[in-house]
């Protein structure tokens, strides 16, 4: 491992020499729309690009997650997974145009997560340029149905149905370089929908307003006590409703997220919200429905886990200062299945969830070198020790 660490900084320039290929992959992937549940075009492109780079096997799993396998030299070693989610929060299913300037690339969905997917499709060319051979098979996956209502279904299926043990995993996200995530909060995302019947006989001043009802729900939720230990919090993240400035709103919806170190606390808060919803529904004689959109159990690697320690060493060798925060990415699915995994960010960027999401190009080469470094660490056995 240490030998390889010494060589890591020199790899950055080698990786940079493939900049046209890497940027092309990012742009071609990013310009192919992939809203959650409609990832087919991007999935095909992902496989086409891997096939063009002569990956040993390109296929889909039973859930249609596209994957490419770079065969390793030792068939007795379990595979290592490198994955990024294919879908983007950007809903429009229409052509997207990225803009490349001297030091930046800009475009919707770039940082979450076209950049990550583009980097994965470039890895076969990078392995070849660096003359890298791994003992394990490297499984390059673009998982579908991750975001929002997707609820990480793609990665859940991929890992659950994989026929062999898995040695370790690296989840790639566009930003932020230095991110070294090894824990996931417990989380429930829910939606409360309020519906007022339009054919009530008393369509007068007594007709409840769906927005006002949801406001009442919000106030009650904000009165809930969240604990400091285990850490927990509630975020009201989305609201929509009504049709017209001068009309009573018959429909309204509220999106929220509960997060905590402890999944028990998450469930407890969710039960409280359920009580609030039932109470207000009864008092106002309206339909209030509470729905779970997605959920995750809390899971974590210890800081002294060899994968975490070695990953931090890789980052530091490259002059990247590691920082950690909890994530609700695919990593949590790895960890919940007792597969050691970390999440890494590739570069610096801004406007992550806006049309003008922008990444810096230059730091990306270090970001890719860190992925190679962590892959080498897993291949050398750091996940096998525990």
């Amino acid at each position: 491992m240490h030998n390889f660490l010494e060589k890591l900084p020199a790899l950055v320039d080698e990786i940079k020499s493939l900049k046209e290929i890497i940027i092309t992959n990012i742009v071609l992937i990013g310009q192919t729309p992939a809203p959650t549940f409609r990832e087919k075009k991007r999935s095909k492109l992902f496989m086409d690009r891997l096939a063009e780079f002569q990956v040993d096997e390109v296929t889909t799993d039973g859930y249609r997650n596209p994957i490419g396998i770079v065969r390793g030299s030792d068939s007795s070693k379990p595979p290592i997974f490198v994955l990024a989610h294919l879908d983007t929060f950007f809903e429009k299913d229409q052509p997207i145009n990225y803009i490349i300037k001297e030091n930046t690339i800009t475009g919707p969905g770039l940082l979450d997560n076209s950049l990550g997917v583009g980097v994965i499709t470039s890895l076969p060319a990078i392995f070849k340029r660096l003359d890298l051979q791994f003992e394990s098979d490297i499984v390059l996956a673009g998982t579908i149905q991750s975001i929002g209502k997707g609820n990480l279904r793609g990665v859940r299926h991929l890992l659950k149905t994989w026929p062999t043990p898995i040695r370790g995993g690296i989840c790639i996200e566009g930003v932020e370089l230095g991110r070294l995530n090894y824990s996931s909060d417990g989380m429930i995302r829910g939606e409360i929908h309020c519906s007022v019947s339009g054919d009530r006989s008393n369509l007068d001043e007594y007709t409840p307003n769906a927005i006002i009802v949801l406001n009442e729900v919000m106030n009650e939720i904000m009165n809930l006590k969240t604990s400091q230990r285990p850490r927990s919090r509630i975020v009201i993240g989305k609201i929509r409703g009504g049709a017209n400035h001068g009309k009573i709103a018959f429909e309204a919806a509220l999106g929220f997220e509960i997060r905590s170190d402890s999944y028990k606390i998450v469930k407890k808060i969710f039960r409280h919200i359920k009580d609030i919803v039932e109470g207000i529904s009864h008092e106002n004689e309206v339909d209030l429905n509470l729905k779970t959109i997605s959920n995750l159990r809390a899971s974590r690697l210890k800081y002294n886990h060899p994968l975490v320690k070695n990953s931090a060493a890789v980052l530091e060798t490259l002059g990247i200062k590691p920082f950690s925060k909890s994530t609700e990415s695919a990593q949590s699915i790895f960890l919940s299945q007792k597969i050691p995994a970390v999440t890494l960010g590739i570069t610096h960027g801004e406007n992550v969830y806006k049309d003008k999401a922008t990444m810096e190009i230059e730091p990306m080469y270090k970001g890719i070198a860190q992925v190679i470094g962590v892959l080498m660490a897993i291949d050398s056995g750091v996940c096998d020790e525990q």
Partner: protein
Amino acid sequence: MNNNWLAKNTFHYSDFKDLNRLVEEKKKKNLKISLCLPTLNEEKTIAKEIIILKSELMTRYSLLDEIVVVDSGSTDKTRQIARAYGADVHKATEIFPHLEPYKGKGENLWKALYITKGDIIIYLDADIKNIHHRFAYGLLGPLLLYDHIKFAKAFYDRPISVGKNKMRPTGGGRVTELVIRPLFSLFFPDLTQLIQPLSGEYAGFRDVFERIPFPIGYGVETSMNIDIYQKWGLDVMAQVDLDRRIHRNQDTKALGRMAFVILKTFINRKIRLGLIDLKEELFDEMIQYNLVNDEYQADIFKIEGHERPPIIEIPEYREKFKIDRTQIQKRREA
């Protein structure tokens, strides 16, 4: 009218997606290929074009030998960005500095012939938002795989609905359908088979481009079609469906000025070919009106319509490419 041409010489880019085969043909025929991007303030699109074409057709498949940018004097960062991504960048005014400089796409294309090395030159507009390497290999395909084809022109899907869930590509844009196609129908019916005669993307052999004149501005595509057709016939030409191209929208007045230049180029060609005799000079001003504070005000655009001669007639060019006058004579006879 030679109406077999459309069926025989129309291709789809996917006919040429076996890039290894194109590379083999290029090697076998010992050809060099240059890509030229004429620019004027294209900082938003130029990098993407260079990177994608370099990645796919230079680094991964050695089809292109050089990417050359000829710039009309951009005031944004076009030249700086193009250089940063490895293109060979030239200011148009610095090529043949002793000639009177003109500003226009045709000028850049013409001058590019002097600074490029290729036996085949691909010209792509630099404002293609959805650039993909098919734009270049699609045009190269017919030139590399069919010995009789010397010039290939792009056309694109401009889909219209033809029933539920059915779309099909149709003809060109407004200027094509309202100006060019009627003119071709009247005077050169064979050329009506070009689906989009004004498309800005084409490729051809140097010995075709060096022997035709280049109008400076918008007229370059029209004159190129007519000149190649007149000199070598329709069979040396091909057209390739490159799928979709996302265009920069132009307003009707801009299209009007475009139509003016094209009409002028067309009429001048007819005069030169002795096909019509005009009793008086054409005017060189396009006059358009705007309503400002309840008054009509004229916008007058002077469009002189300069034209560069076949570049083979320029001594520096002949010297650089080692062409002597006897060769030119022989080529003429051939």
